[in-house]
C-alpha cells in the first residue's frame, strides 16, 4: 500500500516535473530566438551603432585661403598664434603649476583663476588654453622650462590677420566665430568646431565657402568617456583657395588716407571697360583685427553709435541724392529723346517758375544763355528744370536705370544697396500718392527722392565714357587657379554723338575756366581728367535762410550739403572712372573734386589697367613702389 502510494507520488511528480521542464525548455528557446533576432536580423544595425560608438571623427580645421590684391599684396593672411596649454590631469597640482608658469611669463591672476575654474568643469584630459598670442621670447621661456612644467605645452594656432587694417576693412571685412545662426544655415560640420571662424562681412563673407577649405579628419578610437585611445587614420585638411582681388593695394591705401582729410567720405575707382575696381574706400573705417579675436562690447558700441557710421561701407551702401552728378543722365535722356539738341539754348535768370513754385538755380544771379554743354560745365540748374517737363520722369528714370542707378550689381559685397530711382509707379506703390510734375523738375537735377551709391555713380560715369557699354563692377579676379568669368557687357544703344556732347560738357567742368571744378584740374604734364561736380541738398533751404543768405557751411555738420564728384581719366581714351562723396562736405567743387583729382592722378600714374590680373601674382618684395 505504502509502496503503491509512493509510486503514485513519483508518477505525479514526474508529470509536474515535465511541465516545469517544458517551461524551462520554452524559456531557453525564447532566449535562443532573441539572440538570433538581435544578431541576425538586427545585427547590421547594431554593427553600425557599435562602430559609431567606437570611432570618433575628429575634425581638423583647414587654413583659410589668403586674400591678395591684383599684384599679390596680402590683404588677409593667417598669423601663427602661439598659445600655452595645460592638461590638468598631467599636473600634480594645477594651481601650483600655473603659479610656476606665472614666474616665467606674464599672466594675470584673473586668468589663472579662470583656468582653474574651467578645469573643474571640463574632463581632466582636455587641454585648456592658459594664454594666447605669446611672443617669441615667451615661447622660448616656456619651452626651456618645460621639464618643470608638467602637463603644459605650446600649441600653434592660426589667427586671421589683416595687414592693411582699416584701409581694406570695408572690402575684406572680417571673420568671427560661427554663430548659432550660421550653424543652422550652413551645415558644414566645420562650423561646429569650437572657435571656428567664418566670414562675417565683406569679401570674407561673400567668398567664405571658397576661402574656408576642406576639413581634415582624424579618426580616433575613443572609450565611453571620450578619451582617445589611438588614432586610426588621418586625412589632411585642404587649405582654402587664394582669392586675387582687382584692388590695387597702394591705390586703396592712398584713397583711404586721402579721405581721412574729411570727416566722412567714400570713393570708388574702377576700370570703365573691364569693370574691375581698383579702389573702394569708405572713411571712417575700423580695424578688422579687433574683430577676429572677439571685439569688446565697449569698442563695438562705440563704433556702432558713431554718427559717421564707421561700420558701414558707404561706397556701396551709402545712398545719397546724386545732385548735379545726375545731370549727365538728364542730358543724355533729353538728347536721346530729341527734347533738346546740341544747339538748344535757354536763358537762366537764376530761377525757374513752374506753376506756383519757384525753383532756384544754385547761382542766384543766373547763368545767362546756356546750351547743354555749358549747362553741364557750369552746372546750370535752370536748363535742366526747363527741359524736364518736356522730357518727363519716365524717360529720366529709364536712362538712370540704363546707366546703373536704382539697382544692385551683385558685385561681391553683399552690403551693396540699390539706391532709388523714383517714377510715377514707384510713388503710387510706395507712398500711395500721385506724382507731382514739380517732382520731375527736382529729379532732373538729382534731388528729391533720387538716391544713388558712390559705386553706382562710378558705374554711371564708366557707362557713359566707355562707349555706352553696360559695364558691371567686380572685385574678385581669381579663386585659386580659376578665373571668375565675366559676361560681355551689353550695348546700351546710346547715340555716340550724344555721348560725345555730354563728355564735352564733363571735360569743360574741369578744364574750362568757367567749369565748376576748374580749380581741381590736373596740372601734371600728360595727365588729365574730366568730370562733374554735385552738391546734394540734405535739408531744404528755407525762404528765410535764402533771404538771410545763411551760408551752408555755417549750419551744423549733419545739415550741410553732401559734396559729390564723378570723373574719368584720361580725357582722351578714358580708362578710369571715379566717384567721390564727401558727406556734408558742402560743395562738390570744393570738397569732392580735389579728392577725385588726387585719386585719378595716382591711378593714371600707377596705371593698374596695364597689368591684367593673374592667378598667382608673385608677392612683391618691399621696394620703393610699395610701402
Amino acid at each position, binding site marked *: 500500500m505504502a509502496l503503491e502510494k509512493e509510486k503514485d507520488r513519483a508518477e505525479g511528480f514526474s508529470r509536474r516535473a515535465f*511541465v516545469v521542464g517544458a517551461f524551462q525548455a520554452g524559456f531557453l528557446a525564447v532566449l535562443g530566438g532573441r539572440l538570433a533576432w*538581435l*544578431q541576425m536580423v538586427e545585427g547590421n544595425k547594431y554593427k553600425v551603432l557599435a562602430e559609431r560608438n567606437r570611432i570618433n571623427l575628429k575634425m581638423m580645421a583647414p587654413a583659410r585661403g589668403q586674400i591678395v590684391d591684383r599684384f599679390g599684396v596680402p590683404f588677409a593672411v593667417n598669423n601663427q598664434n602661439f598659445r600655452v596649454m595645460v592638461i590638468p590631469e598631467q599636473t600634480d597640482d594645477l594651481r601650483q603649476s600655473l603659479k610656476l608658469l606665472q614666474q616665467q611669463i606674464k599672466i594675470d591672476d584673473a586668468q589663472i583663476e579662470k583656468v582653474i575654474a574651467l578645469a573643474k568643469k571640463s574632463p581632466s584630459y582636455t587641454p585648456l588654453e592658459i594664454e594666447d598670442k605669446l611672443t617669441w621670447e615667451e615661447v622660448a621661456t616656456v619651452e626651456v622650462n618645460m621639464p618643470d612644467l608638467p602637463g603644459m605645452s605650446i600649441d600653434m594656432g592660426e589667427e586671421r590677420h589683416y595687414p592693411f587694417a582699416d584701409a581694406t576693412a570695408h572690402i575684406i571685412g572680417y571673420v568671427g566665430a560661427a554663430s548659432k545662426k550660421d550653424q543652422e544655415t550652413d551645415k558644414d560640420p566645420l562650423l561646429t568646431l569650437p572657435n571656428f571662424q567664418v566670414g562675417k562681412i565683406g569679401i570674407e563673407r561673400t567668398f567664405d565657402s571658397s576661402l574656408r577649405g576642406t576639413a581634415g579628419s582624424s579618426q580616433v578610437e575613443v572609450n565611453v568617456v571620450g578619451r582617445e585611445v589611438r588614432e586610426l587614420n588621418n586625412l589632411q585638411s585642404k587649405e582654402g583657395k587664394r582669392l586675387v582681388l582687382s584692388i590695387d593695394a597702394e591705390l586703396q591705401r592712398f584713397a583711404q588716407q586721402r579721405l581721412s582729410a574729411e570727416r566722412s567720405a567714400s570713393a570708388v575707382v574702377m576700370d570703365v571697360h573691364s569693370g574691375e575696381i581698383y579702389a573702394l574706400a569708405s572713411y571712417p573705417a575700423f580695424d578688422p583685427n579687433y574683430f577676429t579675436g572677439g571685439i569688446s562690447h565697449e569698442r563695438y558700441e562705440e563704433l556702432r553709435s558713431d554718427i559717421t557710421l564707421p561700420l558701414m561701407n558707404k561706397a556701396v551702401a551709402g545712398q545719397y541724392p546724386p545732385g548735379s552728378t545726375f545731370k549727365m543722365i538728364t542730358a543724355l535722356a533729353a538728347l536721346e529723346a530729341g527734347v533738346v539738341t546740341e544747339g538748344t539754348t535757354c536763358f537762366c535768370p537764376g530761377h525757374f517758375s513752374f506753376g506756383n513754385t519757384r525753383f532756384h538755380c544754385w547761382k542766384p544771379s543766373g547763368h545767362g544763355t546756356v546750351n547743354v554743354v555749358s549747362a553741364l560745365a557750369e552746372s546750370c540748374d535752370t536748363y535742366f528744370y526747363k527741359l524736364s517737363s518736356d522730357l518727363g520722369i519716365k524717360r529720366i528714370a529709364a536712362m538712370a536705370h540704363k546707366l546703373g542707378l536704382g539697382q544692385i550689381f551683385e558685385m561681391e559685397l553683399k552690403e551693396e544697396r540699390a539706391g532709388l530711382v523714383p517714377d510715377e509707379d514707384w510713388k503710387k506703390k510706395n507712398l500711395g500718392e500721385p506724382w507731382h510734375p514739380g517732382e520731375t523738375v527736382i529729379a532732373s537735377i538729382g534731388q528729391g527722392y533720387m538716391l544713388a551709391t558712390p559705386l553706382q555713380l562710378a558705374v554711371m560715369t564708366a557707362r557713359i565714357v566707355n562707349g555706352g557699354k553696360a559695364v558691371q563692377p567686380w572685385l574678385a579676379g581669381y579663386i585659386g587657379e580659376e578665373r571668375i568669368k565675366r559676361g560681355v557687357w551689353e550695348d546700351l544703344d546710346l547715340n555716340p554723338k550724344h555721348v560725345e556732347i555730354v563728355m564735352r560738357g564733363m571735360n569743360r567742368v574741369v578744364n574750362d575756366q568757367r567749369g565748376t571744378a576748374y580749380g581741381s584740374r590736373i596740372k601734371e604734364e600728360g595727365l588729365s581728367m574730366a568730370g562733374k561736380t554735385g552738391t546734394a541738398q540734405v535739408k531744404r533751404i528755407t525762404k528765410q535762410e535764402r533771404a538771410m543768405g545763411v551760408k551752408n557751411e555755417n549750419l551744423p555738420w549733419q545739415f550741410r550739403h553732401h559734396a559729390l564728384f564723378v570723373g574719368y581719366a584720361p580725357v582722351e581714351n578714358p580708362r578710369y572712372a571715379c566717384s567721390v562723396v564727401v558727406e556734408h562736405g558742402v560743395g562738390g567743387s570744393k570738397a569732392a573734386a580735389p579728392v577725385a583729382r588726387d585719386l585719378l592722378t595716382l591711378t593714371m600714374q600707377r596705371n593698374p589697367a596695364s597689368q591684367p590680373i593673374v592667378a598667382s601674382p608673385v608677392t612683391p618684395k618691399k621696394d620703393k613702389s610699395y610701402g
Partner: protein
Amino acid sequence: MANTLQITGEGSLLQKLKYINWGLVFLIVAFASVGFTALYSAAGGNFEPWAAKQMTRFSVFMVGMIVIALIDIKIWYRIAYPLYGICLILLIIVEVMGHIGMGAQRWINLGFIQIQPSELMKICLVLALAKFFHSASSEDMKSFRFLGIAAAFLVGPFLLVATQPDLGTATVITAVGIAMFFLAGAPVWIFIAGLVAACAAAPMGWMLLHDYQKNRVLTFLDPERDPLGAGYHITQSKIALGSGGWEGKGFLQGTQSHLSFLPEKHTDFIFTMWVEEWGFFGGIFILALIALILSYGAWISLRCRHAFGRLLAFGLMVNFSIYCFVNIAMVMGLIPVVGVPLPMISYGGTAMMSVVIGFGLMICCNVHKDAKLPRM
C-alpha cells in the same frame, strides 16, 4: 537489500565517489571555464584582477561541492529547518544593519568572506520546502492549513529580501518557491488564482517600488526614453550583442566591452561581452551548456527514490535555471535590468557559492538516491 543499505547508509567513501555524476561535474567545470575566459578578456587579456581570483575561488568551491555531495542526505534532511532558520536570522541582521548603517545593505562581512544571506536563502528555502513537502500526503496538499504553513516559508524571506531592496533576488526566490509548490503537487487552481491575484496587486506593488526600480521598468519598456541614463545599459548591451554577428568579433576584440561602452562587463553583463566576442555560436554554446546542466538535474531528480531528493534536486535545478534565464533575458533587453548575475560566469563569489552548494546537494541526491528517509 544489503546493497541498498550500504549505499544509502554508511556506504564506503569509494562507493559514494563512484555515484558522483562526473558528467555533471564536467559540465559545471566547462560552464565555469566560459567565465574564466570571459573574465580574462574583460581585463583586456589579463588574469588579474578577475580571472585568477575566480579560478581560485572555483577550485575551493568544487572541493566543497564534493564534500557536500558526500555528506549523508539524512543529515541534510535533518538540518534543513535549522539551516533555514539561520538564513532567516542572517537576513534579519542584514535588514537591521541596513537601517542603522548606510542604506541598502546586502552583505555580512565575516572578515575573510562577505556573505550575502539572500543567496544562501535560496538554497535553504529549497531544502526546507523539500523537507516540508517530503512528508506531505495527497490530502495535505489540498489542505489550506498545510499549504499556508508552507507559504510562510516563502513569504518571510521574500519580504526581507524585497525590502533590502533586492528585487531581482526576491523574484528568483518567489519563482523557486512557486516551482516547489507546483512540483509537490499543490492544486493547479491555486496557481491560476495566484496569477490573477498578482495581476490585480501589480498596481499596488508599483507604488511600493523605489524610484530607481520604477525607472528600470519604465526604461525597459522604452529604452530610448533615457538613452544616456537608465536606458544606457540596455541599449549598449544590445549594441554589443547585435554587433557580434555569427562568429563574433574574436577573443579580446570586443569593441563595446574593451572601450568600456558596456557597463559591468565583468559581472552582470558578462554574457553580452562573451557573445560580442564569440558571436551567435558562442551564445548558443552557453545556452546549450545550460540546457545540458538542467537536463542532468532533471534526470537526477527523477531517478531519486524519495520525495525529498526529487524535490531538492529539481528545485535546485530550477533555482539555477532562473538565475541564468533572468540574467540572459535582462542583457538581451527582454526584461528590466534587475541586477542578477550569470552564476559562475559573472565575477563574484556569492552567486557562485550558492550555485555550487546547490550542485553539491543535487549530486548528493544522486549519491543517496535510494536512501530511506523518515516521514514525519
